[in-house]
Structure formats: structure tokens, C-alpha cells
């Protein structure tokens, strides 16, 4: 498959779109859980971009990076959700607006 029917820029376009949607989710939602999901969305957008570049250059490195990103995402989700559970148990909320103890 030397030629490719779809220009690779379009994959980047989709990635950018997904990334932006994820960003909006992070910035405007109140639920910590959904924010987390939005972050996953952003990570996936980047993954898409990586894979597309990997295809473009014909090198495996991009795919390896995706592999690592997934590992990090898994770790992040595990710890992040644990934190959420802990917070919720104490404060009965999953809304980020109600958790601002770090106020200076």
C-alpha cells in the first residue's frame, strides 16, 4: 500500500478537532469524571496524530509512542480515579468547583 487514498493532513485535521473538543470538555465541565474523560479524548487525539505521522514517515516510532501514551494514560486513570473516589468519600461531591483547598 504505497499510495494512500486519504491525504494525511485530514487525519491531522480530525486529531486537531478531537483535541479541541477534549480541551473544551476540560475547560467547561464541572464533573471531575467527565474532565477525566475529556483528557482521555485529548490523549487519543494525539495518538491519532502519532500514528498518522508514523504512517507518513514509514517508521514505527510513532506507534511505539502511542504504546507509551497508553501506559501513561492507564497509570493516570488508575491514580486519578483513586483520588476521585477518595475525595468523593470525604466530601460527597465530584464537582471540581467544590474542591479548592489549594487556595493561596
Amino acid at each position, binding site marked *: 500500500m504505497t499510495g494512500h487514498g486519504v491525504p494525511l493532513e485530514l487525519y491531522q485535521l480530525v486529531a486537531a478537532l478531537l483535541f479541541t473538543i477534549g*480541551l473544551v470538555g*476540560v*475547560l*467547561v465541565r464541572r464533573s471531575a469524571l467527565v*474532565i477525566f474523560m475529556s483528557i482521555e479524548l485529548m490523549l487519543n487525539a494525539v495518538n491519532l496524530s502519532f500514528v498518522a505521522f508514523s504512517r507518513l514517515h514509514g517508521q514505527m516510532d510513532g506507534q511505539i509512542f502511542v504504546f507509551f501514551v497508553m501506559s501513561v494514560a492507564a497509570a493516570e486513570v488508575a491514580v486519578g480515579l483513586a483520588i476521585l473516589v477518595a475525595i468523593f468519600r470525604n466530601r460527597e461531591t465530584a464537582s*471540581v*468547583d467544590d*474542591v*479548592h*483547598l*489549594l*487556595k*493561596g
Partner: protein
Amino acid sequence: MGLNQLWLVPALPLLGAILNGIAAGKLPRKVVSVIGVGSVGLSLLIALACFRELLALPEDARRVTQGLFTWVQSGDFQADVRYALDPLGAVMMLVVTGVGFLIHVYSTGYMGHEKAYGRYFSFLNLFTFSMLTLVLADNFLLMFLGWEAVGLCSYLLIGFGYQRPAAAEAGKKAFVVNRIGDWGFLLGIFLIFVTFGTLDFSAVFAQAPQKLAVGSALAAAIALLLFLGAVGKSAQIPLYVWLPDAMEGPTPVSALIHAATMVTAGVYMVARCHVLYLLSPVALLTVAIVGAATALFAATIGLVQNDIKRVLAYSTVSQLGYMFLACGVGAFASGIFHLMTHAFFKALLFLGAGSVIHALSGEQDLWKMGGLKPHLPRTHATVLVATLAIAGIFPFAGFFSKDEILWNAWLHGGPVLWGAGVVGAFLTAFYMFRLYFLTFGGRSRVTEEAKHHLHESPNSMTVPLIILAVLSLVGGLVQVPLLSGGQRLDAFLEPVFADAALVAGTGVAHGAASVAGSAAAHGAASGAAHAPGVEITLMVISLIVALSGIFVAHRFYVADPDLPCRLAERAKGFYRLLFNKYWIDEVYDSRIVQPIYRGSVRLWERFDAAVIDGAVNGVGKQIERGAALLRQAQTGYVQVYALILTLGAVVVLGYLALR
């Protein structure tokens, strides 16, 4: 034993000091005495042997040095621990070891009941070492070591009875005032090194006439800086204030340090550096004026003091003034001569006073004495000899030495200096006999309590008195005026002061160097060559003056005891001025000490703490305040942080996009 063992002369007392110091009072008194007195005694014997060997040398070879090791060396600077013996040093060495030995012996009696007996002898031995180092040093730096070390011993011994605040205070005052003088001395040493490239006496004095022009500012600066040191050590105006207070020390200490030896170090130093002084007429004149002024000034204060030791202290200040007067008019040998005789009779006076105080269980007030003659026969006799000697009555030692100074003052200094000396002589005779009459003459004013214990001192105290009395009686005979070949001391010291002529030879041409020039004349031709008529006249005048002083004292304090009170009543202001010592101490305190102290407090509180530290702490405060402002940005809302993060990302992306 002899010149090869010269270093032992100072070393033995040092050893004694270390032994007694380390033993720290654990030794029995007998052993302490043997170590303390024995070390100085041995030192005296070696000194005598050295002196004999020195005499055996030909006159122009009478300078022996003995180097021990290099003390300080840095770059082109070098100073050795090196002792030198020449006639001047020999005279000083004999005075120090001789009088020192007698006073050590005396101390075994006087301090017999003292708790810190070992400490006392340790200090006294240390002093002897320091003083010998001072007079035997071969360079300025080693001399300065001795100079400061005698100051330390003076501090330690004045403050020997440190439980009394007055003693502790007096010790500190002595040290600090001396330090002011030493400031000048130190700068003088620097100037000498910078000028000559060495501090060795022989090299400096040999180069001086070539390197320094007569009357040059440099010569004057060196001489005056050194003189500042002498003023401090020898208690001259304006730094004399420590000496009267130093009487807080034990009486033998006053005799040794504050009468016979240490305080004369300044005179010795000026004599030692006579070459430098001769190169600067200004400095010589200053020395003469300060000496004469001090002689007169201190004598007036001595007139009305009531503490027996303080009278002697002011008398010492006054007599030191005479010695400086002699040096100032270029008669260095006369100054040394008076130094020597003064060591005898003033030590004797102090020891006698000590004997009286001892007998009266510590009483020092003249008005609580009187009529002691029958009770203290030996003390009385010896003190009388000393009093006659200091008053300058023929044929006691003081007559010869004081007269020589007055003669030289007339000859080279002019009638004003001479006049000051003569008035001083009158006052001296008066206050010394006042002291004598109040102590031994008249009716007894001794308290009943003290009368009970009244006793003559033990032999250990009276024998030194007798020896000193003999010396006071015959000591003047080494230098008999008007008699050809009678000036044995002059002749002995001649090799030391001979270069005075050399120096002056270069300066004679200048009118400005007249003082130096006439000094040279003096050096070249000894006394007998001067017009004998004038000299005899002057001698008679001073004798008459001394006798009239005695007469007035007798009239005041024996014949008509109420007279002084009436006189004091009539001239109340003047009396109070004298009695309060011209309020000099008070003036120093209020004009110098207090302003410096208060200024320092202000400097600390209002500048150090407020300004400097305030600035430091202020910086900290400002940072804290700034941080408090920045803290507002930390809202604690995650999404605000995320928003700011996004903003950053947007900016970076924008940069990448538009690049």
C-alpha cells in the same frame, strides 16, 4: 658566666614566672620565694658579670649582641629576637635587676600574708623579664614586645587585688592609656621601617644622619610618634592620668613598676633613639616642653594630695618630667643619670611608704599618720635620706642628678625651661617634706586601732630599705660636677651618645638646629670645661630653693599646723583646683570617654540595629508582602489553572503558527 650568657638575664625571671605561674599556688611559700627571688638574684649576678666583662672591653667596642632566633620574617621585613648590651643598656639592666631584686626581697615580707603569693611573684618575675627585654632589645620590634609586656604586667599587678573594683578599673585604665601611646610608637616603628628598611638599632641609627635631613618633616614625624609612646608609658602630659590611679596596686609594685623601672622606659627609649631626636629640633623642643610642663604641673597637684602613695605618684610624674626635660635639651646622659638616682630614692620612698602602710595596717591617709618617728626608726631614717635626695640636698644623689639637668636646661634650653625646673624643685622639696612631716613629725593622729598594731617592719623589708638608702646617699657620686674625671657615668655612656656629635655636626650650620648643635657641644666637652662660675651659682640657687621649700614645709606642717587650712580657706578656688587635680580626669571622662561611649551606643542602636539590620529585615518584609500579593492568583479552582495553562499553550502555539 658573662656576656655569652646575656640571654639568661631576661630568661631566668621568665623561667621563674612560668614555674610559679604553672604551679598555681600549689607550692609552699618558701619555694615560691626561692624561685621568685632566686631567679632575679641569679639574673642580677649574671648582669653584674656581664657588666664587668663589658667594662673590660675597649671603649669603642662596648656593644655586644646575642641573637637567639628570627622572630618575624615576611618578605623584606625581618626582626630577630636579639639582645644587645651597651653602656646605656647596661645601666638600665643593672637598675632593673638591682632595684628589682631588692623589691623582690622586700615583697617576701610585705606580701607575706597574701593569699595569691605565687601569682604575685609570677607576675613580678614576668615583669622583670619584660623590662629586661625592653632595655636589652636590639631592635624596635623586640623593644615593643617588652614595652607592651611591661604594660601587661603593670595591668596585672595594678589589678592584683581585683576584688576591689577600683583596682580592676585602674589596671584597665593603665593598659588603655598606654595603648594610646603605643599607637604612636607602633606607627613610629612603621615609619622607621619604611624609611630605613630595617628595625635594627645599629642599622637605623647609623643610617639616620644620611637618610634624614636635620629638621626634616620625616625626622620630626618619626621622633614625635615615638615620643607619643614615651608619653604614654612614662606618664607625661596629657597621658599621665593612669599613673596616680595605678597606686591601687600593691606598694612594692608601685615601687618597682610605677617609680623605678617601667615608667622610665619612655626616657630610656628617647635616650636610645637620641639620634633621631637630634635630627629634629622640633621634636627635641617638644620633649623639653612636655617634660618641663609635666614636672611643674604634677608637682602642683602633689602639693595637696592626702594619700601618701598618690603624693609619691605625682612626684614620680614630676620627676619623669625632669628626665624628659634633660633629654629635650639634648642632655641624654643627664636624663639617664636622673633616671638611675630616681630609681634608688623613689623606690626607697615607695618601699618606705609601704613600710609605714604595713605598720599602720593599711592606712594610706597622711592625716591619719604623724609622730611615727620613734615607732619606725629604720623606716624613718631611710625615708629621710630619700626625701633629702629627692629634694636635691647636697650630697645626696638627687642633688647631683637634678642639678645637672637644671644646668643643662640653662645651658641649652634657656632661662624659661630652667625657671620651670627650679620652681618644680621648690615644689618638690615642699611636698616631699610635707609628706615627711605629716608622716613622721608632729603629734600622732593615728587611730587607736592602728596604734595597737604599730610595729617596725621585718628585716626582709628594712634591709632593702637600708641598701637603697645607701645607694641614694652615694649614688650621685658616679657623676660629680666640676671635678675633672668625676663624670664617670658620662664617660661610660659616652660611646652611646657619641654619635650625637656626629649627627649634630651636620646640623650646626643651620640656625634651626641650634639645640642639636649645642647638645653636640655638650657631648664633645664634659662639664668641667663649662664656665664653672655660672654652674656654681646655679647650684647654689637650686640648693637655696630646695632648702626654702623644706623651710616652708616645716613652717606649714610643724611650726604652725593651722596655717595650711587658713591658706586653703583664703585661696579656696585655687586649692580646690589643685585638690581635684585640675579636674583633668573628669574632663577626659566627660569630653572623650562618655561621648565615645554614648556615640557607640547610638551607633549600635540607631545605625546598626535600625538602619543596616533594618534594611536587611526590610528586604525580607517586602518580599513577604510581594508574595502575599501573588498569592491572590492561587484561587484553588482547578479549571482556572487549566485555563491559564491553555492560555500559555495558545500563546506558544500562536508563536509556532506565525513564526
